């Protein structure tokens, strides 16, 4: 053992650890209480989705996208459907587009609720977790009415959605939207502006805009660094260009711009905006077809597309190569969390051990998407 080895201690965090959000393993080198290096080891949930894509047909792959980022299955379904539609040149009916936006935004809220809840429980506050899940159950119920499942929906299909919303869905959604803003206020009272919470997060793990670009960080984490970049605004898909919503950016309210608190707060702001979008969409909803005419056997022409969509965690991209057969030739999934996690070794240097949890929690990573 050399002198340098004696000075440092290596600790293994995970793969089974309550605050790594799944099966992430971090090899942490510490110098007393201060971290001198973190090495993430991923792959504990590598499920070979890219290989599966090459072996199943285009419609059959939709259920697998549910399991890509299970907190935001609708958004994953949507991105995949848009990719194949681009290749096939399918025009999606307007009602289907509106339904897609409603589902995607509701799912964004429910995903951010988990982010909020699990982050707070990582930080030692258990009550907000229960509150977050309580509201999430409400959204789960809505999805259950619409498509029959609580978590893996398989609702947004190539060409439209799997079925029209049943009666009562709109009323129930409105009921939720009326109920939800008060709850956000409660979250802020409970947690966001709590002095201890701020003390733990402000000025921790600041991501500068340049770092964010270098590592390809997207989504709320990028916006927290003060960059106004939201694909729903920059490259509007579906009907997002008709909708009125703000893109919140980090302003460094409690410390430096791009710190852990900003990243946390982005999600609270985005939930408000998503609720606003859903409300507008419910007003726009007019009778019509819920799906375009899609043949049962899909054979897209040979070609390549790279399509991306704004997921709750950032940009989800699908790079799809078709060789004209019924199965994709290659499907590469560009997962937002993959890029977001890759900055951790850089961020977690010279911080305290307890801050590591704050960093991972505030990045809101999800493992199945990283490992695929």
């Amino acid at each position, binding site marked *: 053992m050399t002198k340098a080895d004696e000075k440092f201690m290596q600790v293994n965090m995970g793969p089974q650890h309550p605050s790594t959000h799944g099966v992430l393993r971090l090899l942490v080198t510490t110098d007393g209480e201060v971290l001198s290096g973190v090495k993430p080891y991923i792959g504990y949930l590598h499920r070979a989705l890219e290989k599966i894509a090459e072996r199943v047909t285009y419609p*059959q792959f939709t*259920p697998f996208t549910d399991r890509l980022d299970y907190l935001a299955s609708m958004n994953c379904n949507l991105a995949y459907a848009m990719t194949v539609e681009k290749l096939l040149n399918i025009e999606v009916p307007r009602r289907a587009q509106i339904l897609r936006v409603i589902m995607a935004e509701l799912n964004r809220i429910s995903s951010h609720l988990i982010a909020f809840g699990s982050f707070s429980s990582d930080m030692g506050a258990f009550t907000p977790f229960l509150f977050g899940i309580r509201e999430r159950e409400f959204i789960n119920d809505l999805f259950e009415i619409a498509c029959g499942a609580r978590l893996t929906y398989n609702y947004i299909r190539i060409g439209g959605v799997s*079925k029209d919303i049943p009666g009562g869905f709109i009323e129930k959604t409105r009921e939720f939207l009326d109920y939800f803003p008060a709850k956000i206020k409660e979250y802020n009272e409970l947690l966001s502006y*709590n*002095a201890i919470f701020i003390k733990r997060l402000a000025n921790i793990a600041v991501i500068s805009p340049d770092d964010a670009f270098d590592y390809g960080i997207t989504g709320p984490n990028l916006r927290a660094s003060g960059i106004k970049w939201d694909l729903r605004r920059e490259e509007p898909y579906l009907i997002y260009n008709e909708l009125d919503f703000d893109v919140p950016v980090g302003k460094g309210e409690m410390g430096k711009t791009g710190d852990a608190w900003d990243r946390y707060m982005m999600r609270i702001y985005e939930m408000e905006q998503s609720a606003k979008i859903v409300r507008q969409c419910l007003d726009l909803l007019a009778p019509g077809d819920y799906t375009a005419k899609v043949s049962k056997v899909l054979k897209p022409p040979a070609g390549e597309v790279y399509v991306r969509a704004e997921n709750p965690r950032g940009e989800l991209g699908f790079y799809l190569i078709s060789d004209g057969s019924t199965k994709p030739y290659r499907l590469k999934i560009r997962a937002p969390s993959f890029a977001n996690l890759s900055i951790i070794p850089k961020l977690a240097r010279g911080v305290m051990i307890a801050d590591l949890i704050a960093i991972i929690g505030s990045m809101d990573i999800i493992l199945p998407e990283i490992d695929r």
Partner: protein
Amino acid sequence: MAGYFKKMYHSISTVLTGLGVTIKYGINPKTEVTQQYPEVKREPPDGFRGKLFVDINICTGCTACARICPVDAITLKTVRDENKKLRPVLFDIDNARCIYCGLCVEACPVDNCLYFEKKYEFSAYSKQDLISHFGLGEVKPAESKTEDKKTEAEKEGKEAAQ
């Protein structure tokens, strides 16, 4: 000094606000959300994706469901009977493997043949118990040979892919 007290005030007041929210829920029985599960059960909505059920008597043995299934949870074997009609002698659904995606239900050409029941509590001590058998059972093969439709369907699919 004033800053010190200000900070103290800030910490205490925010903690109290937070606690206030919790206490409000603690004393108001109307806000209770817990569902007393085994005693009180919520009826799943229409279109709920629970356990798969096959009305085997109207099944035409077309194997559309087995072909679309992304995980091969459906094992289907058909025999031609004396009237040259396909008879599904073996129709097993492995609930332990099923992912409840609903693609098979949409693929089924016969109304109310393959559908989801509103049943979701059927855990078992053994994996074998999770396989539901719907097949009509072997009948005496009337001169026609037993054909494994599924492998045939797969072959077709491969040919189409090429």
